[in-house]
């Protein structure tokens, strides 16, 4: 898929509450955030709600943005919190991860039934902590350092968790074909 170049976002303008800066941030990250949220929540509508929550939370806490060093990592960390908050609101906090592990990926997310049956289902079969790393790396386009920052883990942990996840995903895909 051909993607438009991502616009630069001025953190100072975000902190100052400039709507234009938020529009630029949306243009830059919306697709990536939506794909990550979709993979984690397994529901396109829930994923859109989570992305909406992220931007509203950023606008409300805009003064904090002045202290942010890595904006992408910060936004994805906010997305993670938004996903968890959605789970809380649905009264499944205690079994959040178990639920994420068992959620079938919505068929509406894929235009290609064959692809849907293989990759997305294999992705959904991963443990949630591994799936989170994979989609943050591949869909979110984050570096391991940014993932580590977003998940509050070490970069080495993020990298090894990603490696294990890809090995498992590869095996799942091979088994399915």
């Amino acid at each position: 898929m051909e993607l438009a170049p991502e616009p630069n976002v001025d953190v100072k303008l975000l902190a100052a509450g400039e709507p234009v800066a938020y529009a630029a941030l949306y243009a830059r990250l919306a697709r990536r955030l939506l794909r990550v949220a979709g993979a984690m929540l397994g529901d396109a509508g829930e994923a859109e709600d989570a992305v909406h929550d992220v931007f509203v939370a950023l606008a409300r806490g805009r003064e904090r943005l002045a202290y942010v060093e890595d904006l992408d990592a910060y936004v994805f960390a906010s997305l993670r919190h938004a996903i968890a908050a959605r789970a809380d609101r649905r009264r499944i906090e205690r079994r959040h991860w178990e639920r994420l592990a068992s959620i079938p990926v919505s068929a509406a997310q894929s235009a290609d039934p064959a692809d849907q049956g293989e990759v997305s289902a294999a992705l959904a079969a991963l443990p949630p902590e591994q799936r989170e790393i994979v989609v943050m790396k591949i869909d979110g386009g984050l570096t391991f350092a940014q993932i580590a920052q977003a998940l509050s883990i070490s970069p080495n942990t993020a990298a090894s968790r990603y490696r294990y996840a890809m090995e498992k995903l590869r095996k799942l895909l091979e088994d399915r074909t």
Partner: protein
Amino acid sequence: MKGKGLDQDDWAERAVHQRAGPEPTDNLRNRVLDGVRRALAEPAARVVWGWSGAARWAAVAAVLIVGLALSQMAASVTPFFDRPVAVAPSPSVRDVAQLMRQVSPGLNADEADRLALASAARGDLPAIPIANADTKLPAPDAGLNFQGDVR
């Protein structure tokens, strides 16, 4: 899909990357930016310093260390800790002599006094007058040891 001719690290990542997924719609964009506008119209949230677990424990440790240091300083300058240790009252030579006569009824008063005085001469008991200083004591080879006899 299996991509046998591809790098093993590559084909799985590419499969994930190329899978279909939700795409942002104009409706979502309008909804998000409306929400942002409303949020920007609200007063900005104040920056609140969060207390992480590590910071909390660091604060507790700092309080304990400062408290310990202050208590040590107080102990070093407070006279309370410098009071002399009370000592048990020491018996007088007369008391010792009476005790000797009780346990050794064969001793007369002068012998008991001399014996007590001889014992006390090695310590810091004050000397006291001896009632019969001219009394002849048994010879040293009689078995008595008058070590410290001050005569």
